[in-house]
């Protein structure tokens, strides 16, 4: 029997005596007897830590994926996380603290989050960032809620270039919020916005010819686009801003925060809200979580901002201090009037991102982005020379990720390359399903392979990948 409980038998006896109780069961007198669990939980008895560690290690060893050289992306990237970032973000004061409800003893977390907010706001080109949401998808859901609230309209036009899982979440949550989600298809890797002449001159319904009908909810209150989109393509955001302006809609950009290191900022493109997945900043791949939802907006929208916000203030003696602010937006005060239900969020990942961005600094972030783009270009040029590999998105410029079409089904390619030691990428069918969606058709889903090259991949690794890819598509 091993646990973390300090109570000796004597302690328990003394405490029961103090309470005038005979035994521990009496503590649960209020629980109707019939309901109580008779024989205890049907779980094995506790095991000592070293045995448990061995078991957990066995799970870990059973994950072959951890040993594969990672060329997968799709929103989760194998970026450098240096020992210094792990050491600092792992300090137990950050790890074992609660939400900073008592600012006098929580300046550490509060200041780190304040710095995080500043960094993320600078990245986005917008003036306000919150203290984190669960992940990119939840940030997008919140952005749509904000946008619909701001515009007063529930119709949401979402580019199919937005990550399929994020669109899935939007659909799921729209069941509660009542938003009308319209997914705008891609053509050649970029969104075919309906009615935007700059996109599809002369065609009222846009290039894809599938205009959202009037039945679908009328003019959009929110327009959502990804930059770059999930296939890695760089879309022109000017038409999106025009669309939003034309309809008085909120423009939401789901931006890749690493690519932002070399791309024009979403704020500059005119975004009202910028969301993103912050995993790339110091958080390991982690089988998908905990990750970090980035969320930025304009000052005008700050009172609709979901989640926590840290602001600077002073203490009674006038010393600089930080505190969570605009608490009225949160649920603990106005309850059903809250802008969102988020309470526990991903603060530790935000602190981690602050440390990682502190480590990268101005030059490092640009360098990481540039190196990703270089690796992607290098791999793309060579891959397209392979017989059996073609581009899935034409010649649209890509930045840190690209979609290839492989002659065999992409899932087969992934399996074959796993045997060679590579995580080849993500098969599009795993993201969009076998039938495809507005981003790719069924053939694209079956043969589309999404490949990401981060700054960690050496030319030897990429060359090895190309050899294995060549083999996998020929087989």
């Amino acid at each position: 029997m091993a646990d973390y409980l300090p109570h000796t038998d004597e302690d328990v006896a003394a405490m029961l005596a103090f309470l005038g109780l005979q035994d521990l069961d009496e503590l649960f007198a209020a629980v109707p007897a019939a309901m109580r669990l008779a024989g205890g939980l049907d779980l094995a008895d506790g095991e000592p830590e070293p045995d448990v560690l061995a078991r957990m290690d066995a799970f870990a060893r059973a994950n072959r994926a951890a040993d594969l050289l990672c060329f997968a992306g799709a929103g989760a990237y194998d970026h450098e996380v240096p020992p210094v970032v792990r050491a600092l973000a792992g300090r137990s004061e950050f790890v074992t603290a609660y939400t900073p409800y008592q600012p006098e003893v929580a300046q550490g977390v509060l200041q780190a989050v304040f710095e995080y907010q500043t960094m993320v706001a600078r990245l986005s080109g917008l003036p306000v960032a919150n203290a984190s949401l669960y992940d990119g998808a939840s940030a997008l859901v919140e952005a749509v809620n904000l946008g619909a609230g701001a515009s007063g309209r529930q119709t949401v036009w979402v580019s199919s270039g937005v990550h399929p899982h994020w669109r899935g979440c939007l659909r799921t949550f729209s069941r509660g919020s009542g938003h009308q989600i319209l997914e705008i298809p891609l053509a050649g890797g970029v969104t075919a916005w309906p009615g935007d002449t700059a996109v599809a001159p002369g065609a009222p319904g846009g290039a894809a010819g599938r205009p959202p009908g009037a039945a679908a909810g009328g003019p959009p209150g929110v327009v959502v686009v990804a930059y770059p989109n999930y296939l890695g393509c760089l879309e022109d955001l000017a038409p999106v801003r025009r669309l939003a302006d034309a309809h008085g809609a909120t423009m939401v950009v789901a931006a890749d925060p690493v690519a932002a290191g070399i791309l024009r900022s979403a704020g500059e493109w005119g975004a009202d809200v910028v969301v993103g997945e912050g995993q790339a900043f110091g958080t390991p791949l982690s089988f998908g979580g905990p990750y970090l939802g980035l969320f930025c907006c304009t000052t005008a929208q700050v009172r609709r901002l979901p989640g926590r916000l840290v602001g600077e203030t002073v203490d009674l003696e006038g010393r600089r201090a930080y505190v969570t602010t605009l608490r009225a937006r949160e649920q603990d005060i106005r309850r059903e009037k809250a802008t969102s239900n988020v309470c526990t969020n991903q603060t530790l990942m935000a602190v981690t991102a602050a440390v990682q961005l502190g480590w990268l600094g101005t030059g490092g972030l640009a360098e990481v982005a540039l190196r990703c783009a270089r690796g992607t270009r290098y791999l793309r040029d060579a891959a397209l020379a392979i017989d059996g590999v073609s581009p899935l998105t034409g010649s649209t410029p890509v930045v840190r990720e690209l979609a290839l079409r492989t002659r065999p089904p992409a899932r087969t390619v992934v399996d074959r390359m796993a045997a060679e030691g590579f995580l080849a990428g993500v098969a599009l069918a795993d993201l969009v399903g076998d039938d495809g969606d507005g981003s790719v058709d069924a053939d694209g889903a079956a043969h589309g392979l999404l490949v990401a090259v981060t700054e960690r991949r050496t030319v030897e690794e990429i060359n090895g990948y190309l050899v294995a890819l060549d083999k996998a598509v020929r087989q």
Partner: protein
Amino acid sequence: MNPNAQAEAHAPGGRAQSAPLMGRAGEPTIFELSEPGRRSWQLRTTGVPEWSAEELLPEAHRRVTPVPLAEVSERDLVAHFTRLSHRQFSVDLGAYPLGSCTMKYNPKICDTVASLPGLAGVHPGAPASTTQGWLALLVELEEALCEVTGMAAVTFQPAAGAAGELTGLLLVRAYHEARGEQRRRVIIPDSAHGTNPASVTLGGYEVTTVPSDARGCVDAAALRAVLDRDVAGIMLTNPNTLGLFEEGIEEIASAVHDVGGLLYYDGANLNAILGVVRPGDMGFDIVHLNLHKTFATPHGGGGPGAGPVGVSARLVDFLPGPRPVRVGQAAHAGAAADGTTAGGRYGWAAPPRSIGRVHSWHGNALVLARALTYVLVHGGDGLRRVAERAVLNANWLRARLSSTYDVPFDRPCMHEVVLAASTLKSRYGLRALDVAKRLLEEGFHAPTIYFPLVVDEALMVEPTETESLQTLEALAEAFERIAAGVAEEGGIDAARAAPRTTPVGRVDEARAARTLIPTFDARGTGGAARAG
């Protein structure tokens, strides 16, 4: 010159002069420590051709000036965040009796588990054949949580309790809609946590509030009065936020079920009843767990958590997907596999009538690995001990402090006790807030204050099972000293000036909201300004 004033003086490269360890010196922001040209980053030598941005990107997309971040040496980076960590209270430093938050000890073994490369280094989009360890781990955890809650299946996608609530409400909706019913209302007690009504609203339902009765439980008559076939369900936490067990839970359950409604269990307080009674056995249909509370995964200063949702058999088909399953069970759990299951005993399966995804991937996986570790170390026997000791500790504090503070509902509590400063307030002007700040001075974290809303000047104290009797004694003495102190000459002024020994003194919260400074760039602009 006072050290903090130096920190205020913004100079490039900052004033990196050491430690809050020494007195109450301020810490400059990393932006003030920055000097152009300094760097920490080091990246792999890759040998990839060094094309310029101009060669790689069309001009329209190219950033003209780099994102302005801080530029510091690794040495200054380390000192900065280490000093910040010294300005932060945490469970590892001392008792944290924050009610409703279950700030128990977070075992260090879980940090080791969460950093195993075989777990932390796995891409979420890798094929199932290469992630068998993760899938097996999740299936094992699901089975354990089913046993703990009395539910039939669990989804791991919700990233926190509130996400679990909303997921649960969407399950409620899907369930009713599948039966062709459109219900509009969800009932919640007035003592409920704020996330409950917010989730109800986001779930597209209207909130119907029922009051608490004199014993601190749901007022049965009031409940019956609002129950009808428009009610989609009720959300309860049991023990409730007053730390009291809802004794009438059986009647509540049958009353709600009688009108066709579902019962949702807010698992924030599950710590009190682990191995004693299960939500499923109380009649609940849906349960969320806060693994960051009951299962000791650290809160991380506000997150990450994990809010898995368990459901009874009739709701399994609606769960978010894809879900990790034993391959033999895939058919049972839903046919349309999302992702390959080839080459392994575990795979993914989408429930047939799934509400869809509620997370970018599979949920907060590393938090889940921590929770399984915790379950395995404790086992069935240990989890029950957890509940016993948590309840014992709370009752000891209740009994000890009931002569000094008000105990609005003075009967045996479960894992937490709600005290109140109402008498001290009316007699000396001492508010719950002042008690909290004085406790900080005494070296303890404060309890939760002003919650639940139904108690005036509430002090919600949750000691948790990992605090020793000696710590409880020390905490009780601190509470008593605070009450005694305010009766002394000048006592109330001292209390209002508290805390005086913390890294900063009492913080002006109103000013933060009035003049919003959400970023370093908004400083001196009189509030938030549009940044570059």
